[in-house]
């Protein structure tokens, strides 16, 4: 953490320094330019340049330790949390670099939500879990909070299952329900981009397919980037697929192309299950 607050631009309409989506409803461009990440001396990501399509699902695949999660965490700067992590290059949300001076990380994370590998609800009630985000961002009215909670739970396809027991502890839900709760919690802060870090790896097949259906719904309003070790999942849900290997983005193309006719031999070997 910076001990001294970095100066904030004077522009009052854009206090956070993160540009808004264009007013015409046109979605935000998301790209990286020569993005590298180092953990102490180890380079986890090697100069990745890529453009992520808006309001589509982009899948990132590759063997463990290939840098795909590291890459994902660049978009909401969750790498800041890791001591000794160092980021080089640009991550552009619209035309602003998220690592640039004057970009407020809190505002950034409001707009770029994240769902983690393990369902990680807070030890609170279902309602409080979803209301937490809006509350910390200044929503106070009871009525308003209730509306947000309801809409978010509906969007996460959890409302019908929990609407009568919103006061129950989130830990009483099943794993799949917990993960949908975490998605609802992310939706409640009204992000534009949703990052998902292996969101189904801790779930059973049935819960997995519910979440996959949910993702397909979400892409109508949100740009979704999902890291997955499950190639079938990537093939089922995503429009674009990126294949990472040892910190390199080996290939980035339409999912169909990557899985049926990859340009790189290593991609071909990986998707056909010969390693990883």
């Amino acid at each position, binding site marked *: *953490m910076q*001990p001294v*607050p*970095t100066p*904030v631009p004077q522009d009052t309409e854009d*206090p956070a320094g993160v540009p808004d989506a264009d007013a015409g409803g046109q979605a935000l461009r998301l790209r990286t330019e020569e993005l590298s990440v180092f953990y102490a001396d180890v380079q986890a990501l090697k100069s990745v340049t890529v453009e992520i399509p808006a309001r589509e699902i982009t899948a990132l695949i590759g063997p463990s330790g290939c840098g795909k999660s590291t890459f994902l965490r660049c978009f909401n700067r969750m790498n800041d949390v890791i001591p000794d992590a160092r980021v080089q290059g640009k991550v552009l949300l619209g035309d602003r670099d998220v690592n640039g001076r004057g970009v*407020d990380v*809190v*505002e950034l994370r409001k707009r770029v939500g994240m769902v983690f590998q393990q369902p990680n609800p807070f030890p609170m009630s279902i309602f409080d879990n979803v209301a937490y985000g809006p509350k910390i961002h*200044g929503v106070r009215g009871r009525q308003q909070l209730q509306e947000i909670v309801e809409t978010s739970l509906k969007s996460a396809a959890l409302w019908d299952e929990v609407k009568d027991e919103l006061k129950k502890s989130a830990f009483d839900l099943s794993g799949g329900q917990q993960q949908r709760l975490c998605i609802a919690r992310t939706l409640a802060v009204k992000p534009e981009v949703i990052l998902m870090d292996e969101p189904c790896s801790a779930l059973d097949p049935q819960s997995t397919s519910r979440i996959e259906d949910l993702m397909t719904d979400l892409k109508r309003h949100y740009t979704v980037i999902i890291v997955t070790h499950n190639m079938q999942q990537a093939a089922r849900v995503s429009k674009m697929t990126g294949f990472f290997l040892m910190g390199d983005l080996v290939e980035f193309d339409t999912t169909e192309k990557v899985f049926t006719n990859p340009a790189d031999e290593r991609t071909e070997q990986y998707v056909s299950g010969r390693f990883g």
Partner: protein
Amino acid sequence: MPVRLRRTMEWAIEQLLRLCAVLSVATTIGIIYVLISQSVPFFAEAPIKEFLTGTKWTPLSASKSFGVLPLVMGTLWITFIAMVVALPAGLLIAIYLSEFASRRVRSTIKPALEILAGIPTVVYGYFALLTVTPLLQKVIPELNIFNALSAGLVMGVMILPMVASLSEDALYAAPQRLREASYALGATKLQMIFRTLIPAALSGIAASFILAAARAIGETMIVAIAAGMQPIIAWDPREAMQTMTAFIVRVSMGDVARGTLDYHSIFAVGLVLFLMTLGLNSLSLWLRERYERAYR
């Protein structure tokens, strides 16, 4: 909330937290500063050489002598007696808890030891003076009412839980593979314990001994109540002795006026006490870190 305001608040909160954290460092600096600055006037009258080598301690009487050795000797004597009780018993209990006791037995003994450790020292003082000394006098009739023996024995009981619990931590932390390797070579359980486990956990056990000794040196109320107030170099534990801590208590009980030699003498003695315990504590910390690193 506007971004700028929020950031300022976050910054202010972090500074406030840091300030609190730094307070603990200020406490140490405060202790060192106070002990040194307040004992300077004492050393203006008492030559340091006499202080460190003199064998008579009468700074408060008309004919003044400033040899701190009687107090140091009294302290070391009583600490020695306490260690004679606490070391073997503490280590035995540690081995028993770590290697023999069932989970159920352990969960009875450990809280009992914690109770023993949590009893206020003034209560131990009472126990030493009014229960242990009369009992001992039945065996040793010439035992003084105030004596080093009884204070030392009770102090040994007081520091025993510390030795037991810290030594047990060290034994318990020894990796299971050490035990297995020893058994695999055909060792009996006792051979395993004494030839493999204890040597492996030695620095942790030593750390617990040293910490316990530091605790005994700094302990005040047992000795103030049961060991007496005679600052003479005595070789007989049946006699009364005065420790450094007991001297400080005795002077503090009267309302010492600022600027008097009495007032400054307790800081000089406090300085010696602090340096001794600081040395031992640092040594113990160093040993402890060593074994923690070794097991990681």
